[in-house]
């Protein structure tokens, strides 16, 4: 009797374990735990270790049969005291902020005009924004090199028009970096803004006009506040990845355009210093944590 009840219990427990709901939730949970959460915890762990010839030290040491945790803050101390890291973080944030602001200035009117164009051409306009997305990002960044170098397309055109005598040095400067960043991230700003502005209820503006508000005032008092969610979503989608950008500064930036993604890359690949690279990553995550929280909050609100 007892045997049967145990068997029943086990089989019902098993059934419960693999029933639809648990299965559907369990599979993605497992996937993301292993590939997204655990790796970040490992980065945190390694940032607190030190490099021992080819391996990183273990955090737990066994002394007299008792485990003792040994945390090593050397990497963080180094980041905190070395001026280069401080400057690099600051300049990464500055470049990311500049990219976000320039993208917003270009994208807001664009998305606004797009949302006001005739309904039947809007899908085409949207597809034309998405189309460059499908072409390799790397190739498009490379193309800017062809355009911006000293004997490149833009300088050649300007010189043949007689506007300039000598080529302007645009490559490997903060200017070329910003062009590449704005170029790559512009669609990420346009799309959420367009999604938001195309849903705007025109009756608010008509009501405002009826009540005697000038269109310019109505724009600032009604359209802009109502599109706040789009502005925030777009800004975060540009700002967060821009902080850690590696490819664009590597291809278009100069040696003096400091970006933290490059520092991380060099610590890892050139210096082989894993704890240092991890500490750089942890500090970067802390810096983008706040914008990410804002983004998630607004995403949740817009879904609700």
């Amino acid at each position, binding site marked *: 009797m007892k045997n049967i009840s145990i068997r029943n219990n086990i089989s019902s427990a098993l059934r419960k374990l693999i029933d*639809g*709901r648990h299965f*559907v*939730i369990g599979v993605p949970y497992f*996937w*993301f735990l*292993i590939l*997204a959460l*655990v*790796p*970040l915890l*490992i*980065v945190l762990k390694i940032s607190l270790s030190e490099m021992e010839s080819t391996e990183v030290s273990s955090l737990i040491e066994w002394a007299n049969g008792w485990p003792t945790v040994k945390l090593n803050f050397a990497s963080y101390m180094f980041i905190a005291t070395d001026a280069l890291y401080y400057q690099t973080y600051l300049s990464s944030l500055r470049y990311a902020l500049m990219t976000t602001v320039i993208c917003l200035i270009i994208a*807001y*009117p*664009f998305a606004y*005009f797009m949302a*006001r164009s005739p309904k039947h051409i809007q899908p085409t*306009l949207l*597809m034309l924004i998405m*189309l*460059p997305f*499908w*072409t*390799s990002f*790397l*190739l*498009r960044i*490379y*193309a800017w*090199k*062809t*355009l911006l*170098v000293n*004997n490149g397309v833009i300088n*050649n055109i300007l010189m043949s028009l007689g506007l300039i005598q000598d080529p302007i040095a645009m490559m490997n400067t903060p200017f070329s970096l910003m062009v590449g960043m704005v*170029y790559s991230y*512009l669609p990420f700003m346009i799309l959420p803004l367009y999604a938001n502005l195309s849903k705007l209820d025109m009756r608010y503006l*008509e009501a*405002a*006009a*009826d009540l*005697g508000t*000038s*269109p*310019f005032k*109505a724009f600032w008092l009604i359209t802009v506040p109502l599109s706040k969610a789009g502005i925030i979503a777009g800004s*975060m989608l540009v700002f*967060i*990845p821009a902080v*850690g*950008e*590696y*490819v664009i500064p590597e*291809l278009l930036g100069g040696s003096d355009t400091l970006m933290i*993604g490059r520092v991380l890359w060099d610590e890892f690949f050139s210096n082989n210093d894993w704890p240092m690279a991890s500490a750089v*990553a942890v500090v*970067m*995550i802390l810096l983008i944590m706040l914008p990410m929280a804002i983004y*998630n909050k607004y995403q949740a609100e817009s879904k609700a």
Partner: protein
Amino acid sequence: MKTPLKSSLRLSEKHATKSPVTMAVSPKMIKWFSQSWMLVVYVFLYMPIVTLVIFSFNDSQLAAVWSHASLRWYAALMKDNDLISAVLLSLKIAFLSALISVFFGTFTAFALNRYKRFQGRTLLSSMASTPLVMPDVIVGLSLLLMLVSLQHWLGYPERGLFTILLGHALLGTAYATVVVTSRLREMDSKLDEAAMDLGCQPFQVFRLVTLPLLVPALVSAFLLTFTLSFDDVVLSSFLSGPGYSTMPMVIFSRARLGLNPTINAVATVTITVVTIAVLASSFYTSRQERNRKREVAQAYSDMNK
């Protein structure tokens, strides 16, 4: 930003006495301004792509100076075995990664949409959006360190195709989740309920009702994740081992050294393929949409007979 709305402008013309500011800006000027603003942005977006294509037919060794038209870089491309094997590896990884991403992305989208309350739902949704916003270098570094620890304990996996694939699949799953979620949200839950009322088991509902309706979303998720994987250079550089160079890795290492006309030729080939694929898929989705509408209309007319 100086331009008021067209429709509110029309209204304010009626109330011209109330808002004299708008008198200065005519609707024609607004139209001109908005159209030229849009044109400039489109030129900005397409100029580099057009340049790539034009200069792929340039005979000169100097990649940015036009001499005369030739196909010599395409000929060079045909003989470039490093690049060709890299393209094949990229295609293989992109295909597998897109399959895996769509599979897990659909699961994630279902878990988050069909079950509104379960323990750790917030954790799942934030884990699923982390790869979307996290800088590539961090995703690459963290995955690599995880795989290295795994290898330390288990002796597996070796860095190579499999590890690159895992990285791309993680990124792809996050994007596929977004695509499938947006489709699930706009889908009519009445259909599911009707199927259940008619005695379908949950899995049958999924197989017979939900899945067929999801197909367009799955196709676009597949295309998107394929492109993401085919495009990625940072994750691949972290996760690949000796002998496994994807196409973007090869292009990146050449582009770092300077301009290289073979890259223009590769670019033109991929742009052509991508454009054809995008056009084909948009044709497919619009036909799908037409068919669906026709079927709905048919169903209604049958009902009214």
